[in-house]
């Protein structure tokens, strides 16, 4: 049976853990607020961008010479999956959830006889996917060195993807990330980045121009050539922001749970400790009384 000292030590250690989880929860809450603001601030740009791409693709529809970024290479043999996850653990099921989602997608594509290449953004999903699919893993991009996710991070990633696309290393690029729905709910989302045509909203129809025709300066192709890479960077940027917000949300609720758990644990241990102390006092008293009676 554990001695009183052991009980005291355990209670102390649980208390320290509780302090740590509490601090992590508070840090995550502060970061979450900032991340959430960033996601919301970035939405207008992404929305406008897809509207503009939508307009252009309607204009380009069915015409020859459309850029491959928009309409695809015409094949779907090699898929590039960009999987965004957190770089750190201790955020509940966040990373496992995205990794599971990615794994299902990978198995499906492999089952169809396609070649799959994986590019991980954030180390945790890479750790999990690497166990089974290490042959397919191209690279892992860590976000740890970037304190804030800004558009240059996304631009770097999109440049990398574009270079590969131009080299003909894949046909279809799909982005897998967690969409930040609320603090307690992050939805794993699959979004096709290349060809851009497939990801456009049905709602992105041509705007009302009052009968006038759009003038393009330079021509449609010239604009698309600049716009599509930018659009790619924007989609990735948006996804990264959602990803960070989701990570912080998941971390906050996970740490909140642990803090509460630690509290319950302390209560239970304190109760046991007190019972034990009382029973020892009682035993001692009985011994003394018994001793006194014997005299």
């Amino acid at each position, binding site marked *: 049976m554990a001695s009183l000292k052991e009980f005291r030590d355990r209670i102390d250690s649980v208390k320290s853990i509780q302090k740590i989880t509490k601090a992590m929860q508070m840090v995550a809450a502060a970061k979450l607020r900032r991340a959430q603001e*960033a996601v919301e*601030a*970035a939405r*207008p*740009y992404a929305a*406008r*961008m897809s509207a*503009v791409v939508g*307009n*252009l693709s309607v204009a380009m529809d069915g015409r020859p010479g459309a850029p491959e970024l928009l309409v695809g290479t015409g094949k779907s043999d090699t898929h590039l999956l960009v999987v965004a996850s957190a770089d750190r653990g201790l955020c509940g099921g966040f990373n496992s959830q995205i990794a599971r989602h990615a794994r299902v997608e990978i198995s499906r594509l492999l089952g169809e006889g396609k070649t799959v290449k994986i590019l991980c953004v954030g180390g945790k999903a890479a750790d999990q996917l690497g166990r089974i699919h290490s042959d397919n893993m191209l690279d892992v991009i860590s976000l740890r060195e970037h304190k804030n996710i*800004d*558009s240059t991070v*996304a631009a770097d990633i999109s440049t990398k993807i574009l270079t590969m696309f131009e080299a003909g290393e894949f046909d279809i690029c799909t982005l897998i990330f967690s969409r930040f729905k609320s603090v307690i709910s992050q939805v794993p989302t699959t979004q096709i980045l290349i060809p851009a045509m497939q990801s456009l909203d049905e709602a992105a129809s041509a*705007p*009302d*121009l*009052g009968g*006038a*025709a*759009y*003038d*393009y*300066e*330079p021509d449609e192709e*010239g*604009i698309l050539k*600049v*716009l599509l890479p*930018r659009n790619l*960077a*924007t989609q990735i*940027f948006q996804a990264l922001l959602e990803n960070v917000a989701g990570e912080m949300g998941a971390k906050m609720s996970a740490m909140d749970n642990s803090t509460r758990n630690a509290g319950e644990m302390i209560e239970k241990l304190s109760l046991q400790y007190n019972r034990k102390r009382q029973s020892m006092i009682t035993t001692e008293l009985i011994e003394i009384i018994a001793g006194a009676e014997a005299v």
Partner: protein
Amino acid sequence: MMTARLQFSLVSPERELFSGEVDGVDVPGEEGDFGVLPNHAPVMTTIRMGAISIKDGAETRRMFLRGGFADVTPAGLIILAEAAVDLATLDAAKVAKDLRNTEEDLADAKSDDARRKLQDRLGYLQALQNAMMN
């Protein structure tokens, strides 16, 4: 003739910088500067690095853009800027200092990649300084 106003919004990837009604906007297009007034014919164009002027009554606000797109529709003007700063909030001395620092960094740069990035930044700062002087 109705007194039309131009619905103008300027957004960068990080946030929306301006949204509202103005009298007109001068935009540095890739193939020449152009002014946008209310009820402009629909145009879509790329923007080079440079300053836009937002005219509202007697006031003119100048913002410096680091490239982007302008989408003009009868409904208004939308500018998607890669990066944008308000020239009124900039400190000339600070820009000059940044410029000097970047020049020094460029001289010390080791890899081609770093050099290319710094060169980009240098071009940006120089253009920024020019815009501030006008």
